[in-house]
């Protein structure tokens, strides 16, 4: 990358950033923890111009809005880990943030970058799927929202238009909902996941699981939900018998591959085991 260093434009107002995007082509950069690596590894053709988002304070901040948790796209993993609002409202998001890279990466990497980079291994993305998160996008043409479940249509693709930015991630209020998160990598820090999973549900008065969400990363071309596993768990108590049944359903939902980090067989076995352990913890068996 030292041979081809693009110029960067660093707007301080969102409207300016929109104007640059509309003029295009220009490549946005947030904290750089993916883009700078891709440029160094030469897996990405260096763009002619880069739109540096780092000074757009309008994209920072964590707030509550009518019961929803709203996280600005430029919010770093460190900010998520330390946010009293996140720890109170959606602690699983802080938990996921803590598994990402190590302190140097957490100080730069952003939730929005994770979403837009659209890696199937994006560590926070199953949390967004398991919580029915809504992505708020903006550009010169106005703002719109896309459900997380619709945001990653294919490998490394997003629903974002070239002239749009991700502004915020909205986590809708869900009283009584539980969410669990697990990441398996080579080691605890600095590892890209072999398997990452988030499971959400709302226990009813009898302890049956309602509104079940099973979301995984590194198990297919995109971060994805596992609809057969969800259907198997819906309305059920977290029993040992159920755990056996859901393992088969989950396996049908997934399409893992062999790659440098793991094998398809390992990923299938471990994802089933993760889900079983979550059910075991909740069922107390």
């Amino acid at each position, binding site marked *: 990358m030292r041979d081809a260093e*693009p110029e*960067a434009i660093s707007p301080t107002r969102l409207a300016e950033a929109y104007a640059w995007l509309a003029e295009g082509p220009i490549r946005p950069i947030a904290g750089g923890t993916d883009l*700078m690596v891709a440029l160094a590894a030469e897996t990405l053709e260096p763009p002619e111009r880069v739109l540096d988002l780092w000074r757009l304070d309008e994209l920072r901040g964590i707030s509550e809005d009518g019961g929803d948790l709203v996280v600005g796209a430029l919010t770093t993993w460190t900010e998520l880990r330390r946010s009293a609002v996140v720890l109170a409202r959606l602690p699983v998001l802080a938990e996921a943030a803590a598994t990402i890279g190590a302190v140097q990466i957490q100080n730069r990497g952003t939730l929005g970058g994770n979403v837009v980079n659209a890696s199937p291994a994006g560590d926070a993305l199953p949390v967004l799927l398991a919580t029915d998160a809504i992505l708020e996008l903006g550009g010169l043409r106005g703002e719109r929202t896309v459900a997380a479940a619709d945001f990653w249509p294919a490998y490394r693709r997003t629903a974002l238009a070239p002239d749009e930015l991700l502004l915020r991630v909205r986590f809708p209020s869900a009283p009584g909902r539980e969410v669990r998160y697990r990441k398996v990598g080579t080691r605890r820090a600095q590892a890209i996941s072999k398997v990452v999973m988030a499971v959400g549900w709302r226990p009813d008065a009898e302890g049956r699981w309602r509104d079940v969400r099973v979301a995984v990363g590194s198990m297919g071309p995109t971060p994805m939900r596992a609809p057969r596993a969800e259907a198997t768990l819906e309305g059920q108590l977290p029993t040992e018998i159920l755990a056996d049944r859901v393992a088969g359903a989950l396996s049908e939902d997934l399409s893992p591959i062999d790659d440098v980090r793991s094998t398809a067989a390992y990923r299938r076995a471990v994802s089933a085991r993760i889900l079983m352990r979550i059910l075991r913890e909740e069922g107390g068996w």
Partner: protein
Amino acid sequence: MSAHRFRVNGEPVSIDRPGMRRLLDVLRDDLGLTGTKEGCGEGECGACTVLVDGVPVVACLVPVCQVVGADVRTVEGLAPAPGVLSTLQQAFLKTGGAQCGICTPGMLMAADAYLADGGGTDEDAIREAIAGNLCRCTGYTRIIEAIALAAERGEAAR
């Protein structure tokens, strides 16, 4: 294009280079501050850790446009005066927390930030603070001892 202005170890600098130039190259090649090491060049090893406004980052992943107006500190800025080492640097000497030395500047900067943030002698906390810094010589034990010793000696390492 206008030059990028910021401070390095307290001194104002002005860098007339493309905005996507890596902070690492600016420090080493433009400013001659070769204490900051390049290991992997892709954010995995932590050898190029520096502080930007007190926060540890890997200089290989930070474009220079993103440090405009910031206060960058490198290993050259750790010693409080010429010929005087910081508490943390002294602790590394005392415990033998360095072998080949390539990870040492990054380790020092990560540890400095940890101590400045109020970090103490707890081994798990120290391990987490340096989890982004690889060392292939020491087995980490003496590095961890050094950081704990500096924490024990009380003053943040400046």
